[in-house]
């Protein structure tokens, strides 16, 4: 009997924890937005973060896109061959990349690469009283640390996502034409025929939302750090896991709304 009660108690605690967490996150977002109106944006930090999130990530994002595009082309070949529709491989690769894999994979890679470092950087500043020092110097941490990261992420994610999709389609094309030995013109023509402009910009809307999600959660988690290096490690893990879950969740919601 007792273990059943224990079980319900645990669920209860977890629900309370979730509600509490959601509440603090809402307050956090509210404070970030307020800082925008009170102090505008810290341009130096915004620029640094755009370089860190965007420029420094080009290579890894390009690589991810390339391999995913190549695999997509190869995989869909096996299926398409059976029913004799290999001319559909081009649109399959292009639509998957622009609508889905470009934004999602980019977001997950950037979460791993930049979200983790946002959380650990802010977390370390928190436990070593650097955040306190900022506050005593009347420099709002939301203005100085959070907003530049969130906005940089919001701006750079769509750009990275486009690059990832483009390189992915290119990779798909290479596999299609050179490894599978099929007619490259068909690949391109069919993409033109089946892809709409809305596929591209809906993918971009996704990327913007993912960018906001990953940077907001990662910075928020940073401020929650307490109690030494273990605390920083803990919030970093949480930041990556939570951001990823929220990104996938938002992906489902957005897909059902946008397409």
């Amino acid at each position, binding site marked *: 009997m007792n273990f059943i009660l224990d079980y319900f108690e645990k669920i209860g605690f977890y629900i309370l924890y979730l509600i509490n967490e959601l509440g603090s996150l809402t307050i956090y977002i509210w404070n970030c937005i307020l800082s925008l109106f*009170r102090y505008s944006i810290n341009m130096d930090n915004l620029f640094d973060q755009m370089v860190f999130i965007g420029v420094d990530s080009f290579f890894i994002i390009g690589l991810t896109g390339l391999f995913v595009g190549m695999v997509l082309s190869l995989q869909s070949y096996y299926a398409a061959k059976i029913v004799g529709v290999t001319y559909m491989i081009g649109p399959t690769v292009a639509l998957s990349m622009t609508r889905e894999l470009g934004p999602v994979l980019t977001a997950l890679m950037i979460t791993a690469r930049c979200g983790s470092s946002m959380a650990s*950087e802010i977390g*370390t*500043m928190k436990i*070593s*009283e*650097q955040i*306190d*020092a900022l*506050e*005593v*110097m*009347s*420099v*709002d941490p939301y203005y100085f640390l959070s907003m530049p990261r969130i906005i940089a992420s919001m701006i750079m994610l769509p750009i990275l996502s486009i690059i990832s999709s483009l390189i992915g389609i290119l990779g798909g094309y290479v596999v299609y034409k050179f490894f599978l030995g099929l007619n490259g013109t068909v690949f391109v023509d069919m993409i033109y025929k089946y892809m709409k402009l809305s596929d591209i910009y809906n993918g971009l809307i996704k990327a913007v939302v993912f960018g906001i999600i990953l940077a907001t959660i990662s910075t928020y988690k940073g401020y929650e750090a307490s109690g030494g290096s273990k605390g920083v490690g803990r919030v970093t893990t949480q930041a990556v896991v939570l951001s990823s879950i929220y990104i996938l969740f938002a992906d489902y919601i957005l897909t059902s709304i946008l397409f």
Partner: protein
Amino acid sequence: MIILENIDKSFKGVKVLDNLNISFEDKKITVVIGRSGEGKSVMLKHIVGLIKPDSGRVLFNDIDLNTINKKELNELRKKFGMVFQDGALFDSINIFENIAFPLRQHLKLSEGDIIKKVMSGLNDVGLSGIESKMPSELSGGMRKRVAVARAMILEPEIVLFDEPTTGLDPIMSDVINNLIISTQKHLKYTGIIISHSIEGAYKTADIIAMLYKGAIIETGNAEKFKKSDNPVVKQFVTGSMVGPIVI
């Protein structure tokens, strides 16, 4: 005038400050002494609103810190400089940028003026020539001195020092104590210093206060402390193991 009034503060059920009352006079140096772990740093953080009291009030020139909004608090904090116990230097930027940070945030100075001010600040704490080093490359005592330079760079009205001389050699301690005294004479700031060192307190303080068991048990000038009848104060001042303070 800064007044802490009936401050209570507990962490996880453990009472750290217990009905603490103290006032800090304008343009004077008050040194708060007390044993390690008594709550001195916690008290200091109350003054700038980094920690909120469970009950009681923090008054700054009759303004209750609890009744003002964030923007007003930020305006008020501009009057303060603070040296954290562990320095709290920004570890991602070098020493020069650390000291220049408050200048860049709050004043519109030319780069030349910033360089001039930072260099003279570094010189005052005996650290010329280290401006391009990173905080992680400095010793604990050097970091502490950089923190002192950073706290004073805006020539604030009130400076809070959390153990500015702990971890420094006796000569450097004296340099910092003298720096505090001379800049105070010159800038006329209100100084609040946390210290373990009774000798340093005698030297720098206009008023000494002793924190014990979460409350202030004695305040007065150095003479009063030397002659105090309070056995707790006596034991602390003489640094003896024997006495009412149980270890």
